[in-house]
């Protein structure tokens, strides 16, 4: 092939390997993507009570997600504004203030006694040593200006210009809802199993969202676990039977995409699931019936897995999880995983889910460990001088996307295709080239007029 010079060549389905290994590009990503996009930061179950906090990450920045005394959620840069000490070195807890170990500046989590949580609440010697001359209002913790809680998930952006979370999601929201709503369709009925997997993988972070945005093609890499069989109804494979209508759906203007089912207006015929556990099987059936009842002939969607640009992916069905890919360096990420069950599911159903999820995902998951091998050695293998000069191939199904009816701004691409990955890298390219949100295709521009 003749050698292109651009990093992304949309019309040919080419992506330069340089974006997976080069430091300069990585630093630009941090600057142009991770300070602008909406990023997943936490699940509300990590901070159920007022005063609760949990640490998280946005790009390479450490943040604290807090719930103030009014119950409102905030996202604060985890670094003392005085001399930079990592303010909170606990992973989680409950507090009224954060007090800095170095010189004792303290910051409020309490929306009542100061204007904003994260405000500088206590400065030892303020009136004496400082002669009252510190403009305390200016020295609160750096706050993410945009924070949004959506069906128990918490998102934030550093960019005051970022569109609303709903506009940022577009109709991808319907598919996110499928994961966050209850199995019977009940709104936001999800609960996080205690604990998060956090682990380091020597891979460029983009291998993960690219994979989860719609890579059915790599099923073959999971043949070993398929042979063994870990699905919740026994037998071979990793899951219960999925709907026949499965396809890939992408949002070209937004960078999101998924594997799942197009809008439909009736529940497909019931296929028994979770049959290894009697209660879980009954619960599964019950939920089917409830969905039939609840949705009637209304539009509904369902999905297996998808990515919200840039670095959050989620599984909607089996397992039901949220994954986040935190960039560490061009060739390292820290991956996080959270698992969801229905809040009101019977204990035994939750337990069946927990056991299944752990066997599937995370560093010890029988499925996911093989993904880690692939992503890390694909990264390793792209570092060489010759190797980094060539392009990855994303030609599968190029030009075969069709508009998807019933979902705004979506295309449907068939089960096996790389359209969604192309959508992801095109959006990546737009972010990298944009000077600000003005240059990014305004989300739902028409609505705004």
């Amino acid at each position, binding site marked *: 092939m003749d050698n292109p010079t651009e990093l992304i060549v949309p019309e040919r389905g080419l992506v330069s390997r340089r974006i997976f290994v080069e430091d300069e590009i990585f630093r630009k990503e941090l600057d142009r993507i991770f300070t602008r996009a909406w990023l997943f930061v936490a699940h509300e179950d990590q901070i159920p009570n007022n005063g609760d906090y949990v640490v998280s990450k946005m790009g390479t920045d450490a943040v604290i997600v807090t719930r103030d005394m009014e119950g409102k959620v905030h996202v604060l840069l985890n670094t003392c504004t005085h001399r930079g000490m990592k303010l909170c*070195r*606990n*992973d*989680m*807890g409950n507090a009224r203030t954060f007090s800095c170990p170095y010189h004792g500046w303290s910051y409020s989590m309490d929306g009542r006694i100061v204007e904003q949580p994260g405000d500088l609440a206590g400065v030892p010697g303020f009136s004496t040593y400082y002669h009252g001359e510190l403009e305390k209002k200016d020295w609160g913790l750096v706050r993410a200006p945009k924070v949004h809680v959506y069906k128990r998930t918490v998102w934030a952006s550093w960019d005051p210009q970022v569109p609303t979370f709903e506009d940022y999601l577009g109709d991808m929201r319907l598919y996110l809802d499928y994961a966050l709503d209850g199995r019977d369709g009940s709104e936001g009925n999800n609960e996080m*199993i*205690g*604990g*998060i*997997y*956090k*682990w*380091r*993988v*020597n*891979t460029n972070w983009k291998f993960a969202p690219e994979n989860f945005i719609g890579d059915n093609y790599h099923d073959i*890499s999971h*043949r*070993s*676990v398929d*042979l*063994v*069989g*870990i699905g919740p109804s026994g037998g071979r494979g990793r899951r219960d039977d999925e709907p026949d209508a499965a396809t890939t759906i992408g949002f070209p203007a937004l960078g999101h995409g998924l594997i799942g089912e197009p809008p439909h207006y009736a529940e497909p015929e019931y296929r028994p699931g979770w049959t290894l556990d009697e209660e879980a099987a009954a619960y599964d059936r019950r939920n089917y019936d409830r969905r039939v009842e609840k949705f009637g002939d209304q539009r509904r969607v369902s999905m297996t897995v998808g990515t919200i640009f840039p670095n959050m992916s989620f599984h909607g069905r089996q397992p039901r999880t949220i994954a986040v890919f935190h960039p560490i360096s061009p060739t390292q990420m*820290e991956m996080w995983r959270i*698992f969801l069950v229905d809040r009101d599911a019977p204990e035994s159903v939750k*337990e069946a889910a*927990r*056991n299944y999820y*752990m*066997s599937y995902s*995370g*560093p*010890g998951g*029988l499925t*996911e*460990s*093989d993904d*880690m*091998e*692939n992503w*890390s*050695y694909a990264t390793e293998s792209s570092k060489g001088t010759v190797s980094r000069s060539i392009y990855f191939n994303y030609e599968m199904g190029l030009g075969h996307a069709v508009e998807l009816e019933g979902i705004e701004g979506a295309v449907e691409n068939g089960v096996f295709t790389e359209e969604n990955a192309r959508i992801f890298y095109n959006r990546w390219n737009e972010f990298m080239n944009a000077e600000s949100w003005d240059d990014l295709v305004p989300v739902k521009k028409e609505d705004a007029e």
Partner: protein
Amino acid sequence: MTDLALLSSVQTWLYREADLLDYREYDEWLKLLHPDVRYFVPIVRNVPRTATTEFTTEGKDLAWMDEGMTIITKRVNQLKTNIHWAEEPPSRVSHLVTNTWIPECEGEPGSRRVTASSRIFVYQNRIDDEQNFFVGKRKDVLVESEGSWLLLHRTVHLDQSVMLAKALTVFL
């Protein structure tokens, strides 16, 4: 006074077990497990010294591993497919088991149940220069069975909060 024979028998059992894992004789290794075995490796969190939330809870929360014979056997079977890519070609693994002593022993000889406290350092090396260090504390409950021991319960407190390995494809 320590029961020397007991201690030695438990230590030797643990070392033989490590040999079976490190020399990849997984089927033999499975025979060392009690049918009701539980393998538990909780996640550990950074919390104040006084907190009670340092480890996730067995049978309730997420854990690096919290499983019984069914999943353990599946792990072994997956290795035996020879196409479990994260272990194919296989890693080089050494289990160093140290500090073993027996804080608890109950029951009559022939049907004793002992708790063994150890430290482990599991070294994994694969392909060219990938290497992982897993260090932590192990508590094993062994039950006597036909002149030998079966593993009934294993807890490993891995000394890492963020796992510094890309995957956990070794038994700790």
